[in-house]
């Protein structure tokens, strides 16, 4: 109990409160701007977290990402352009509601069910993490290897593109992680004689390049999105209680799916929203109404993407395996702040964990009033011309990359990863898989090589321990899944819905 009181004290510290409010506003604004994703918002925050206390640093990441995932719904609903990829699944539906004159209802549903999803997701994190921590204490390198590998496979499985291209992206990320001397033998690899590469490629410049610089590049090649007409909104939350009662079952299903997808290492909010929207349509009593401005799918998917955000922290905190690209950034920050992920985090640093849960709850509660304000001023925020935002983003990319190590070489890396990300995205290679490969490469290799050394080069011990056998089966299943779908389609089975 003392730990809980201590956690309250930690969260009530002035710097944490300021961090929560400031990052909430930042997340809402960045998330609502089309093209600027929640991941990018988080990546650009990292240099700022260097100078904050550990709890304040985590608070900025949690709050900004939760807000950005919600506010991505706003331009989706009003302009039919999703603000973040996690809103893309139901953008058409929300826009159809707006055209029917139900913009308030659609935005309110986005806000209300985002908050509920976030809170339910947090509760799942509170319940699940300590239980899994018990189990994780007995994990050896075999289990860690399979977990990390499973995470990578999930990241490729959920990408909405060719699974082969996704695997190729993931391998490319792993190859990038080989650069430097951070490997079991400490041998410099692929450094091309450059001292700057000896330390390896940090995930942050890669993330900023792939998610932010490539977005500025894309802005150069595409036309400016249309402006939002000024409009007055009626009550945002009116009717949400009615929706909650009417679609109670889809809402809980959305929460549950979001939690499951979040916990799966590698799969994040975008996927949760896509799966939940498809589920909602499949199990709905009135599937014919989907796509015509029907709130049911919004309820389910809106809850789902925010629920996945919280449960994505489960594998990150327990194993250091990111649940999605946002927690991939968060893991870096956790290490930097001395809160190294692992099962012992829950016993040795319980109050920080309680503080983390509290921040999640607070973020999802203040999301409602701040979100209403954001919806009301959205037309003004979205009127800012792209030509005034993109230059600042690029400048922040340069300075942010420089600030992570006071090293000008990272600025060059950011540019190079920008080009890589841009080219990959244009050609259907999912960049999230690349990023997870880079983030997890060292861990996969470390556990793989250590396990091989322990087993004297034998592969059998990888499957002998019970948990590792289960994980291995899941991983291989994930690997063979696309093949199965392909054969199913070939043999005249009906086309599976994507």
């Amino acid at each position: 109990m003392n730990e809980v009181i201590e956690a309250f004290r930690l969260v009530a510290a002035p710097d944490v409160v300021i961090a929560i409010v400031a990052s909430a506003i930042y997340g809402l604004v960045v998330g609502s701007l089309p093209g600027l994703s929640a991941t990018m918002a988080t990546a650009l925050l990292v240099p700022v977290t260097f100078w904050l206390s550990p709890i304040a640093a985590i608070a900025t990441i949690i709050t900004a990402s939760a807000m950005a995932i919600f506010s991505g719904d706003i331009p989706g609903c009003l302009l039919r352009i999703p603000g973040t990829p996690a809103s893309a699944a139901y953008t058409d539906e929300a826009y159809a509601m707006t055209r029917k004159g139900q913009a308030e209802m659609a935005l309110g549903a986005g806000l209300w069910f985002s908050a509920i999803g976030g809170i339910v997701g947090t509760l799942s994190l509170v319940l699940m993490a300590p239980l899994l921590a018990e189990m994780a204490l007995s994990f050896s390198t075999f289990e860690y290897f399979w977990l990390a590998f499973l995470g990578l496979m999930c990241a490729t499985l959920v990408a909405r593109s060719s699974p082969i291209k996704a695997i190729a992206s993931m391998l490319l990320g792993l190859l990038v992680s080989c650069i430097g001397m951070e490997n079991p033998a400490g041998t410099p690899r692929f450094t091309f004689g450059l001292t700057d590469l000896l330390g390896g490629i940090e995930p942050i410049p890669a993330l900023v390049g792939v998610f932010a610089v490539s977005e500025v590049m894309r802005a150069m090649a595409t036309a400016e999105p249309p402006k939002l007409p000024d409009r007055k909104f009626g009550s945002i939350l009116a009717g949400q209680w009615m929706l909650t009662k009417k679609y109670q079952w889809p809402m809980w299903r959305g929460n549950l799916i979001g939690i499951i997808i979040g916990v799966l290492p590698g799969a994040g909010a975008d996927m949760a929203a896509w799966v939940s929207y498809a589920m909602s349509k499949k199990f709905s009593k009135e599937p014919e109404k989907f796509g015509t401005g029907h709130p049911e799918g919004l309820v389910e998917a809106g809850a789902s993407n925010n629920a996945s955000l919280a449960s994505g922290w489960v594998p990150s905190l327990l194993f250091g395996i990111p649940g999605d690209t946002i927690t991939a950034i968060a893991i870096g920050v956790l290490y930097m702040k001395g809160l190294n992920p692992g099962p012992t985090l829950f016993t040795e640093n319980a109050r920080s964990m309680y503080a983390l849960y509290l921040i999640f709850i607070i973020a999802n509660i203040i999301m409602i009033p701040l979100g209403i304000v954001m919806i009301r001023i959205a037309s003004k925020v979205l009127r800012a011309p792209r030509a005034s935002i993109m230059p600042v983003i690029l400048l922040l990319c340069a300075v942010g990359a420089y600030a992570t190590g006071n090293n000008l070489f990272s600025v060059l890396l950011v540019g190079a990863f920008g080009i890589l990300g841009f080219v990959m995205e244009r050609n259907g290679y999912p960049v999230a898989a690349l990023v997870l490969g880079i983030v997890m490469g060292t861990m996969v290799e470390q556990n793989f090589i250590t396990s091989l050394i322990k087993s004297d080069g034998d592969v059998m011990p990888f499957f002998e321990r019970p948990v590792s056998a289960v994980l291995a089966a899941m991983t291989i299943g994930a690997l063979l899944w696309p093949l199965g779908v392909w054969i199913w389609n070939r043999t005249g089975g009906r086309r599976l819905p994507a």
Partner: protein
Amino acid sequence: MQLSDRVTGGVLVVLGGLAAWSGSRLPAVPGQDVGPAAFPMLIGSGLVICGALIALGIGRSFEVPEGEMPEDAPATASRFHGLRVLIPPALLLFYMLASEPLGFLLTAGIMVFVVAWALGASMRLAVPLALVAPVFVHLAFYKLLRVPLPDGVLPAPW
């Protein structure tokens, strides 16, 4: 930069082959079967296989056709228009080379101006933005976050 699957697949095959080959030449750890070479070789071979499959067009049926945003207006589609996407990385290179001699404020001002101008901002927007944005970023990073941004020829007055 829309390339065919043959090209990207081919690039991956070459890259994977190079990675596996140079990985195999890494020195082994004495007395150990597996050393620093194992992982790059494994990844390299994986890339070769994936690249070959992509080049052969396998798995394309999974790709979800995306509702692409409208591409650039035909009026501006000159030969060099496509190269505009290279402006942001070029500016990052410029930042790396110029920020020490020129100083942060000047370098950042040029960067902001060029991007704003390339995105079609009017002078009335681009010039004030190029003057104001670097100052704010400098204040935030230099003063608040204590990042040692270079002074160069135009030191900030604080």
